[in-house]
């Protein structure tokens, strides 16, 4: 898995709430059997019209906004469990998603791929959107070690939560399978002694 330590980057603002994984990557693009290439269809129906022409009003088609941090409204990633959503965001070039609330499954999927979900307060999220509206080049710094996200221009900063185990996975590039595979004996012991065997 990809490591994550610290990132300073401009951001792409998407101030819409309840962005579901069908918007992130529509079901008709889930037919690939590898993890690569989903970035081409990230936000497909918001990004392109029915003739596959880019919609100029959509933020990913606006050259003013470039960066490795996606900032979105609350309840980001709700709906389908498709991990393709996390793959698509990462494949497009984002390393961090910031929102004031994440859906559970999306958050887990992101963490399992080294895409860092950063949950901030509603107020701090509004601050980010305001700063980016004033200056599209606004840079943020996300530091996983110290669990801080900072708006560089104003110095305004907020800390974010992350499970300590997941944090160490990201910092070191380990995944859950490496961790559990080392406990196979315990699993077999459990299977023999469990309270009720199906």
């Amino acid at each position, binding site marked *: 898995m990809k490591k994550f330590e610290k990132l300073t980057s401009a951001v792409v603002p998407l101030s819409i709430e309840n962005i579901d994984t069908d918007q992130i990557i529509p079901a008709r693009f889930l037919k690939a*059997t590898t993890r690569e290439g989903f970035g081409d269809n990230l936000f497909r129906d918001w990004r392109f019209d029915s003739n596959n022409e880019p919609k100029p009003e959509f933020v990913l088609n606006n050259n003013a906004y470039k960066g490795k941090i996606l900032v979105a409204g609350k309840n980001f990633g*709700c709906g389908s*469990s498709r991990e393709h959503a996390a793959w698509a965001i990462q494949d497009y070039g984002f390393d961090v998603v910031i929102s004031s609330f994440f859906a559970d499954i999306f958050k887990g999927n992101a963490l399992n791929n080294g895409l860092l979900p950063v949950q901030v307060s509603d107020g701090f999220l509004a601050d980010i959107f305001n700063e980016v509206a004033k200056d599209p080049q606004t840079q943020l710094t996300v530091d996983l070690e110290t669990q801080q996200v900072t708006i560089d221009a104003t110095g305004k900063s907020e800390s974010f939560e992350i499970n300590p185990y997941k944090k160490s996975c990201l910092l070191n590039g380990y995944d859950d399978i490496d961790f559990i595979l080392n406990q196979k004996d315990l699993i077999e012991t459990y299977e023999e002694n469990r309270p009720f065997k199906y």
Partner: protein
Amino acid sequence: MSKTLVEKIWDAHVVKRQEGFPDILYIDTHLIHEVTSPQAFDGLRKRGIPVFRPKQTVATADHNVPTLDQHLPIKEELSRYQVDMLTKNCKEFGVELYGLGHPYQGIVHVIGPELGITLPGKTMVCGDSHTSTHGAFGAIAFGIGTSQVEQVFATQCLLLSKPKTMKIEVNGELKKGVGAKDIILYIISKISAAGGTGYFVEFAGSAIQSLSMEARMTVCNMSIEMGARGGLIAPDETTFEYIKGREFAPKSEEWDKALAYWKTLYSDNNALFDAVLTYNAEDIEPMITYGTNPGMGIGITENIPATTAQPKSEQISYQKALDYMGFADNEPLIGKPVDYVFIGSCTNSRIEDLRAVATFVKDKRKADHVEVWIVPGSKQVEAQAKAEGIDKVFEAAGFQLREPGCSACLGMNEDKIPAGKYCVSTSNRNFEGRQGPNARTLLASPLTAAAAAVTGKITDVRELI
């Protein structure tokens, strides 16, 4: 110590609990399908490891499959490749597959229960968010991502933090024309599409207890639509009665042993939930959604809420949803024209759903301009419908009975609703483009959907029964 049902099942499956780490949770049953498994199988190949417990893994092809001419090769190349890949992977890794053509094939959340694979007290996962359906049996069942599918393949375990618990009680008697789908759409409309996030929900109360197993599945199925990790209902006589005699259910002495254990699966009287919500069944009328998330639902006779009634920060998203749907503030939905009716999906494609629709449409006919697709949840449901003559009722009504699959719930196959068209759908999501690019979805119960099919417009089904 008093425990909730979720805690009882969870604790019985903890392989290892360590301070500062998520629990290692043992998974009894892993259901897989063609869309979210290929990358996980690939992961095993890269690591050079097998599926650890292939006998606890069951596969079917559902998301991608056509619902017409299933005996012919799949026309669409990418879909065919994905389904073929599932066949190849299952063979290579020794996993049982109920693929196209198999009498047990169907939507993964329909076949688990009907085959007696879904049982009380189990932990069950699938790379699909509607895995919560199986919670209707008093199982901990939830959707996972593909990395976790690989994790379960490799170890039959998941690393997970214990979820918070919420109890949602619905008490009283449901009114005429109101069913399980209305209950769950009502709850989600009250607590929003994110209101259950972080929780595992136990549904309880007299209105829930009075539901059949299939109706309970409809309720638990949509737990994810309020953001919940999963939903479940304590098993009771209704549950045991449903399971007994099914293909893979425990038999003879095993049954007695299982039953004794299952009877211990309930939340203790004074068990503490992190949140408790209570609703009255009498307050629920037939429900329908007007927006682009399942929380945007109203009683069928209500008007669309005004944008200004929404919290300030949500007004832009709310307006965007209404624009997408072609609706305006304060409008009634009743009388709005409908183009398509889809009765199917893991929410409402079981035999009881088809029976309810058939009973309603007997001696009626669909409106001329409406296209009606009935997609049974499984080959077994399809066979049962035919055995009962339900297919003839549908034919006479102008409803098209198709073959099993996820179909127009997510439009991965060719069953798509055209841009701009309105579809009353018994599925679970009304997201933008869910049923096809720019398609407009209104979620409702099978009865409300059938009423729209007959009148050609949004209709209060209570006026027709």
